[in-house]
């Protein structure tokens, strides 16, 4: 790089620095760490489920086990595509400026809401797949008795708790998004 080009580049970088409110910077850093931990959890989850189902299909190569493994792989693939789509462009601010930090926080909040919806849909699909698989391959009763058995009641109970957690989390995300948008309006005057 020529000397003056270098100085010009530094000057542009330097002048892009504006005061970033410390709370906003900390929030972005905190959210980045959370996202990174989430990605590690996704990888671990995928390894366990895909590896486990593959190992089971190899050890017990029966039709229902292979169907289960294929189903798990498809669901994990869907989860990854969704995850990549929702985290694209949200890992770092476009520039080290207050505006970029705020835009990133707003984008993350919006994607967080979309991710929550996607997770709920995926949960329902996974539950439907699992129940259908169990019913067709391990059937011991009629559908009504199956869906109202004791262990199924515990599944409905856990699902109800998860639904309540999702609704609470969604409210929290909405509040956060509203606050960030209010801050954006303040900054734009």
């Amino acid at each position, binding site marked *: 790089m020529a*000397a003056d080009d*270098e*100085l010009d580049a*530094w*000057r542009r*970088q*330097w*002048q*892009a*620095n*504006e*005061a970033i409110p*410390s709370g906003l*910077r900390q929030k*972005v*850093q905190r959210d*980045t*760490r959370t996202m990174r931990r989430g990605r590690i959890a996704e990888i671990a989850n995928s390894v366990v489920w895909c590896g486990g189902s593959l190992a089971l299909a190899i050890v017990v190569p029966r039709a229902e086990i292979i169907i289960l493994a294929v189903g798990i792989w498809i669901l994990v693939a869907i989860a990854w595509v969704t995850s990549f789509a929702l985290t694209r462009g949200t*890992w*770092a*601010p*476009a*520039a*080290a*400026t207050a505006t970029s930090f705020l835009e990133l926080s707003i984008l993350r909040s919006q994607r967080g809401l979309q991710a929550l919806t996607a997770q709920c849909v995926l949960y329902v699909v996974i539950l439907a797949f699992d129940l259908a698989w169990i019913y067709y391959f391990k059937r011991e009763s009629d559908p009504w008795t199956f869906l109202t058995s004791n262990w199924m009641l515990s599944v409905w109970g856990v699902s109800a708790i998860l639904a309540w957690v999702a609704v609470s989390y969604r409210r929290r995300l909405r509040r956060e998004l509203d606050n960030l948008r209010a801050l954006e309006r303040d900054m734009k005057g």
Partner: protein
Amino acid sequence: MYGDVERRFDALLAEHGASLGRLAASYARAAGEREDLFQEIAIAIWQALPRFRGECSERTFLFRIAHNRGIAHIARRRLLTTDIDDRFEIEDVRPNPEQIVATGQQDQRLLEAVRQLPVAYRQVVTLTLEGLSYGEIAEVLGITESNVGARLTRARQMLRRQL
């Protein structure tokens, strides 16, 4: 009279506030410390403004005050203890990866690298990056233009090694 000073003060801060904020950031790393230094600079400008008679440009006047406050800030923190030549070998104190990932850009790395420079070089670099000419920098710092050039050359070598 008071109203005139207030208007001029507001106009100056509106025009040069971002530059002064960056300058404060080059002297103070912690956000709270930076805000305190910025306030100190603003108060010093407010106090000096009635005595400003246009002997130099407003920008030169502002940056001179800001750098003096910055030096006072460092002196208070007892960091101004080594001669600039003793510090030519700069330790590799880069921002931590967390910070780089979070801010995502080179801007933060440049700011960190500038912070690592000895004060005499840091002053020349920050003023250069703010777009001041050699003449203006010489006027702000009270040194000759050739001295500005020499300091800037060495400062750029240091920055290249840091970045």
